[in-house]
């Protein structure tokens, strides 16, 4: 369990979510801001430290589409070109590539070490590595491959979404502690 005592903002905004006790204060605040059909607020955030211990990163990504009176901002969900979504997901939408990324999460590896850890042979491994290099999920230095910060973020984010979706598969949705408002 993290030492949330030193994290007053997290305690105020997210405590119930962290403790799995129901929707957090932040989630309840968001539900109260929705005005009509189509309104949406979405966020993902995280923090991680790399294997080498020397550096880490934090990220947040936030989308909103909330009407105020007659004024409606353009929906971010519809503004994103579908091609950008494809480009984002293709590297992670393949079992073998995720295994390569999971191996690299522990630290940089040579092609031989990757092959041994994943069971992928030469041509296959190089194909998947080139997809991951192009997507900037992986980089290469002195013949050793490593996950980029972006690759770490994507692996952690999609792993939690996958865990959440599977847990809830019986219902209709990703809803861990969903509630219908008003």
């Amino acid at each position, binding site marked *: 369990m993290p030492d949330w005592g030193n*994290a*007053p903002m997290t305690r105020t*905004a*997210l405590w119930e*979510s962290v403790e799995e006790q129901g929707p*957090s*204060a*932040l*989630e309840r605040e*968001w*539900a*109260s801001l929705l005005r009509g*059909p*189509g309104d*949406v607020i*979405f*966020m*993902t*955030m*995280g*923090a*991680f*430290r790399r294997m080498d211990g020397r550096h*880490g990163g*934090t990220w*947040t*990504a*936030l*989308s909103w589409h909330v009407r105020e009176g007659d004024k*409606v901002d353009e929906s*971010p*969900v*519809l503004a994103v070109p*579908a*091609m950008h*979504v*494809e480009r*984002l997901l*293709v590297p*992670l*939408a393949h079992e*073998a590539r*995720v295994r390569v990324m*999971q191996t690299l999460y522990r630290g940089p590896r040579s092609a031989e070490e990757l092959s041994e850890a994943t069971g992928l042979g030469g041509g296959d491994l190089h194909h998947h590595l080139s997809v991951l290099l192009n997507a*900037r999920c992986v980089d290469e230095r002195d013949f050793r491959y490593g996950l980029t910060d*972006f690759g770490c973020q994507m*692996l*952690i984010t*999609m792993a*939690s*979404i996958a*865990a*959440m979706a*599977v847990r809830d598969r019986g219902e209709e*949705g990703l*809803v861990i*502690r969903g*509630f219908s*408002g*008003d």
Partner: protein
Amino acid sequence: MSNWEKIVLDQAPITRAAFGLPGSAGPRPIEGEWAEITSKHDQDAVVYVAGAWNRGGDHLAWGYCAWQVEGNEPGARPHIALRTPATRFERLLSPLAHEARIRIMQAMYDGPKPSGQLSAATGYRGGNLYYHLKELIYAGYVTERGGGYDLTALGCQMLVTVATIAQSAVRDRGE
């Protein structure tokens, strides 16, 4: 000022405290706390995913928090990034990793559509359109409803999720 900036300023004290004002540059206030929480061991990580939406009058909010701050001590759980089987990523994401399917789902975002309207909105017709619809239905992201096709709750949540991440990834990488 966007609607959201005005709403956060006037009506959302918790959002404002954690994330600052929408237009402000640099790390969000809460990111400092999370950097501290993950500073104890190599490979520490914390992740939070949450959303709220209104579809057809129903309000729904969801959130999920996972963390790994135990280091590699004996008895520590497998890491967040490592304990999810790779096949599960593929099952979740491969139905969405196609431009055509994202366009079809975007066309349903504001409500169910008969196939004729989906064709008009996306340019995909006949067997091509039905092939993609079938894959989306099989994955649980789309359902047939009232003589047309509609996003499921899961489909809607996944679309919002991947669109948000795609948008921020493009911004961060300066494309």
